[in-house]
């Protein structure tokens, strides 16, 4: 360092180089790209505004029909939320089972994942809608001790050991069947996502929690899972968006109060199919955009303490949320 200073030519303060004002690198390619894209966008706008086949009035009218709005709110949004709740809760439970020391639990989780990942959702939903046949001739879905009549006969008693009787016509039809089917299928995928998240947490975290005397359940709930969420949330956002779109498969159950079915029935009444497709697209675009905003906030919440930004450092003591 000192030798550097010595060899540098002695110069007055005015000669020392100051702020850099250089000519930036030109990017002619960008201007070409802008020109091409501008033309393409103009073509698209031209198409959207002038082509009569869009029939925008009809599109918005169709979107405004009460059955369609109901189909969107219940068939699309509500079913997405319920299926994802079943899927996420089920998936986390399956992942914890899969990673447990208990070989039975881990095996069961594996079989569940294998089975429900193997079935296409459309076929699963179709099957859910037909399962009622299993219980048609035996007076409904009875839950109780298996082979109870045989055991009772063997013990010389009478009566039955069935505690809960469910009506298959309520469970294996409509939205309930749809939510169960989509939820179980989702749980299988979420199980893998949650497992990856749990495995991504450093082993030292669980050890530190154990060393403080936490039970294994607490270690998982308080320390491992909150950190795993950081890894789990982004793919779960993907899954939610996919689920939103998969609600259109509810038709297989069948669920008639579903968005696209309702739109299609309007379309077939008025012999207009293309505007119906546009209307459905607009609904799904809107819903997906809202979900992406939600995902942003979830990621920010579970990313706290990671990364370099310090949004909460300035908070007063005691205000830090758990």
């Amino acid at each position, binding site marked *: 360092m000192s030798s550097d200073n010595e060899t540098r030519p002695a110069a007055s303060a005015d000669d020392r180089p100051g702020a850099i004002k250089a000519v930036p690198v030109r990017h002619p390619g960008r201007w070409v790209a802008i020109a091409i894209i501008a033309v393409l966008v103009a073509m698209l706008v031209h198409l959207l505004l002038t082509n009569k086949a869009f029939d925008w009035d009809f599109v918005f009218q169709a979107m405004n029909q009460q059955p369609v709005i109901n189909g969107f709110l219940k068939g699309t949004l509500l079913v997405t939320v319920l299926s994802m709740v079943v899927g996420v809760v089920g998936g986390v439970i399956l992942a914890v089972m899969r990673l447990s020391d208990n070989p039975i639990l881990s095996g069961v989780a594996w079989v569940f994942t294998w089975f429900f990942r193997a079935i296409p959702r459309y076929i699963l939903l179709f099957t859910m809608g037909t399962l009622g046949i299993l219980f048609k001739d035996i007076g409904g879905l009875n839950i109780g001790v298996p082979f109870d009549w045989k055991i009772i006969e063997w013990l010389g008693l009478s009566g039955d050991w069935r505690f809960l009787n469910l009506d298959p016509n309520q469970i294996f039809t409509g939205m309930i069947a749809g939510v169960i089917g989509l939820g179980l299928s989702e749980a299988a995928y979420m199980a893998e996502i949650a497992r990856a998240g749990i495995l991504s947490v450093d082993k030292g*975290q669980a050890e530190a929690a154990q*060393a*403080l005397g936490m039970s*294994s359940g607490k270690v998982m709930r*308080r320390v491992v899972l909150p950190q795993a969420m950081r890894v789990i949330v982004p793919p779960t956002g993907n899954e939610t968006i996919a689920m939103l779109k998969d609600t259109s498969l509810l038709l297989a159950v069948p669920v008639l109060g579903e968005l696209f079915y309702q739109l299609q029935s309007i379309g077939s009444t008025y012999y207009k199919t293309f505007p119906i497709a546009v209307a459905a697209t607009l609904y799904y675009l809107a819903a997906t955009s809202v979900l992406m905003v939600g995902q942003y906030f979830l990621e920010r919440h*579970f990313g706290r303490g990671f990364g370099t930004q310090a949004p909460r450092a300035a908070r007063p003591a005691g205000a830090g949320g758990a």
Partner: protein
Amino acid sequence: MTAAAAAEPAEPLAQPLVHAVNVTKSFHHNEVLKGIDLDVDRGQVVCLLGPSGSGKTTFLRCINQLETIDGGRIWVDGDLMGYVDRDGKLYRLKNKEIAAQRREIGMVFQRFNLFPHKTAIENVAEAPIQVRGESRKPARARAQELLDRVGLGDRCTSYPAQLSGGQQQRVAIARALAMQPKLMLFDEPTSALDPELVGEVLAVMRELAEDGMTMIVVTHEMEFAREVADTVVFMDGGVVVESGPPRDVLGNPQHQRTKTFLTRLRSAHEHP
């Protein structure tokens, strides 16, 4: 417990806080601990020294059962760790009971292992709230006191990622102290730190020792061992080579392995 103690002659009545006898541990047929004996009296500071791979960290982890031992016995404050002895037959404790035993023992890790999604004060208050069921307010007040004590009272709301390594390790010490342990285990607490941050952590540990905390410290900090330890234990190849007051073991080592290790450590310190 009293019946178990009576049935076990190796367990004297006026016991040391930590009483380890013939502890062995293997990983995949590789015997890491080959019969370790160690007694630590209340209020004593014991430093475990030795080359890497000598088994010191493993032994420390065995004391609070992050590793299960294959042979021997470890008692902490009269409690047999990990097992209960009924008429000479050992029964493995349930996870819940092992967790209860760990509450009495604080541990500080080489890599801090603070919970990154919680602020400093949340890290410290977590175990009292979640494990001992204390209510939020007193637990946080105590956490604040402990952070003051390690000199970080003003960094309560910082996340671990916003703290330096030395600060993180001091929070980790406060977190362990929050459970009011009888015994503190330190696993190379300064090895992951930049040299200029080592001092602040050692200062906190020194104060802790002066306050009468029983401590077992795995370390390479010779000066700390010399000044703070009551006993220095030199381990190599899974056995205790020699142990005694620091002035004997460090000043006048009897075994060739100890001498070689100390010479190597000194030259490493002089020419880092």
